[in-house]
């Protein structure tokens, strides 16, 4: 059955050894920062740093697929903008620098969330969220969403395999040669699986009593270590550097 295991633990890396709270801090700090960062240089720097952070997991193929997907989205959006400009010249010509900003923000978020989801015990994430005294309606769905990511990645792999066995490609060539069909072949089963997986995870969580705030204990309590401190400090340094980059000469004017 090994062949069907798309999403395995992937071994133990430096990121696996970090406290989930540290990875959550990195994620939240990066997410808040990208709201305020608005130059390609600063966001590009942050995307590269967060990309290096994700690649510590050594999930190169996964990162490649994720980046390819973002690139495709960006390419499709850019293509439509050029098309609209061609049809209606009064519409401004797309400015690549400005255009890249939302995608760089998405890239940063994808890097930090994937790093958290693929290297953390779900109970550790739950325990951390619970310790923040967030309401149950907020922290249980948040944890389920993080747990959902590995299952969803597994589904993506299996759907692509299924397309291959039917004789369809799922890469850029197929997308451009038969866009409607490829999108349907790829997304229809993914949407159905996403709905089913969320139901299944909901059932699994309910049957385990997840959300019973009063009683919960922690089987493997987490402890901060020197490496957590180092990563947290490193993350702050990177974010500071990104803001410093932004305060220098910019290619773009203001917020986007």
């Amino acid at each position, binding site marked *: *059955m*090994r*062949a*069907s*295991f*798309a*999403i*395995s*633990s992937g071994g133990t890396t430096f990121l696996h050894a970090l406290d989930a709270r540290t990875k959550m801090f990195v994620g939240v700090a990066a997410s808040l920062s990208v709201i305020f960062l608005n130059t390609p240089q600063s966001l590009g720097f942050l995307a590269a740093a967060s990309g290096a952070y994700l690649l510590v997991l050594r999930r190169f193929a996964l990162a490649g697929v994720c980046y390819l997907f973002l690139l495709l989205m960006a390419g499709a959006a850019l293509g439509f903008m050029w098309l609209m400009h061609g049809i209606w010249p009064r519409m401004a010509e797309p400015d690549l620098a400005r255009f890249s900003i939302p995608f760089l923000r998405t890239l940063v978020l994808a890097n930090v969330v994937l790093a958290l989801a693929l290297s953390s*015990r*779900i*109970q550790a994430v739950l325990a951390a969220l619970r310790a923040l005294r967030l309401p149950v309606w907020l922290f249980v769905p948040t944890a389920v969403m993080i*747990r959902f990511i*590995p299952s969803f990645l*597994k*589904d993506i792999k*299996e*759907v692509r*395999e*299924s397309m*291959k*066995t*039917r*004789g*369809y490609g799922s890469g850029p060539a197929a997308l451009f040669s038969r866009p409607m*069909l490829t999108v*349907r*072949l790829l997304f*229809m*089963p993914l949407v*159905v*699986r996403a709905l*089913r997986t969320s139901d*299944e*995870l*909901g*059932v*699994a*969580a*309910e*049957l*385990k*009593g*997840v*959300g*019973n705030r*009063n*009683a*919960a*204990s*922690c*089987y*493997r*309590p987490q402890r901060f270590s020197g490496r957590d401190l180092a990563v947290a400090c490193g993350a702050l340094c990177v974010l500071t550097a990104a803001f410093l980059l932004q305060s220098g000469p910019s290619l773009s004017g203001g917020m986007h």
Partner: protein
Amino acid sequence: MIELADVTYSYPHQAAPAVEHIDLRARPGQAILCTGASGSGKSTLVRLFNGLAPHFFKGGLRGRVRIAGADTADLSLARISRQVGTLFQDPEHQFFALNVADEIAAALEWQGLATGEIESRIAGVADRFGLRDILEASVHDLSEGQKQKAALAAVLAQRPRVLVLDEPTANLDPEATLELAGILGTLKADGIALVVVDHRLYWLEGLIDEAVVMENGRVAHRGPFADLRDDALRTRFGLRAVAVNDPRQTLPPLSAEAGRVSGQNLCFSYERDRPLLDGLCFDLPAGGVVGLLGPNGAGKTTLARLLVGLLRLNAGEVRIDGRPVRPSELLTRTGIVLQNMDHQLHMRSVRQELLTAAGTTRSLHTVEEAERMLVRFGLAHLAERHPQSLSGGEKQRLVIACGMIRHPEVLILDEPTSGLDGRNMETIARSLDEFAREGGVVLVISHDLELLEKTCTHRLDLAGHPRRA
């Protein structure tokens, strides 16, 4: 211990009830079996027993469901699940954590047990189910048998008084199935009430105290397990056999004569120095249905993926009609029906699904052929239905039809009948037989002894295949 008293239940937005006027009771140390054709209401019974209906699925419930005298309507789902453990057909559906120890600990943590108590319970179930060596393994990396054991261990660590098992043997090999029967016998002797919902019956002889046959949401027959030996009763309700032969040793091995599809010195490994296949040779004859056998983890699914080009060989080659075929070409000349059907259904209607599957091949298939396929697989009346809205048996028939309509030179099916009732199993067995008689090569990966006995002409046993240590 657990009792359904005159229970009628309807899912939200459904006019007709899924089950009606159900009276069932399982006492401590008693095992009841619920069986019946697909769509007869068995899954709803499982959800009523474990409280998911109506607590999770909502809907309307009339009558009473009681656990140790307490009405489940007054209990939270977490409270119910401490007393009623559920083992789902696909254990992955109940895994919330990502490794075995965490999965066992998860529910215990939410009960607020002390760390020492949790560790003690993990150790207890790990010893009982032989999980010690894989406690830190990812749940995605386990064999089907190990997944089943891990899920069962996680349920039993909560020390439930009732255990509900939904198609527990659907993905198990016959040896693991017998092992499960032994475990359930022990649990029953320990005083746990068992509710088993299953199509496969042969492994339940000696375990079950009362058998209940469902039909159209109602109890159509109840009595001792021996009642199920009645052929007329089983035929009437579309049930599977009570006694099956094990054809794995009696099926003839593949002959040394050149076949239409052959594997020449196939070598493959996921990890360096640990080859899974090492110099495997075989010839698959045209017109034959070959059972690909071997215990879980022997490399059956891997071999199937190699033969269709989803994986690349480390060494060796696959030949069709004597000529080596590249992996990219294999994808167009072979067909595979994988286990998870949701991933393989894309279109708006059953008819479109078949036509789209046919349209990707070099030879153009006609609409007439799609219509013939619909009739052959009993899907004609569902032609305009959305494929994702079909039942499990109907989806399975559709993905097999989609595999066949491409006219692959070799068709591989991975557990095509797991979780299917007797009628659906017969339909699939018949269609494989017809495909082979038309000159196709069929390779079936299955633990389903009934299917192997009905369809296979030869066996390819990976258990006997030599590999380096």
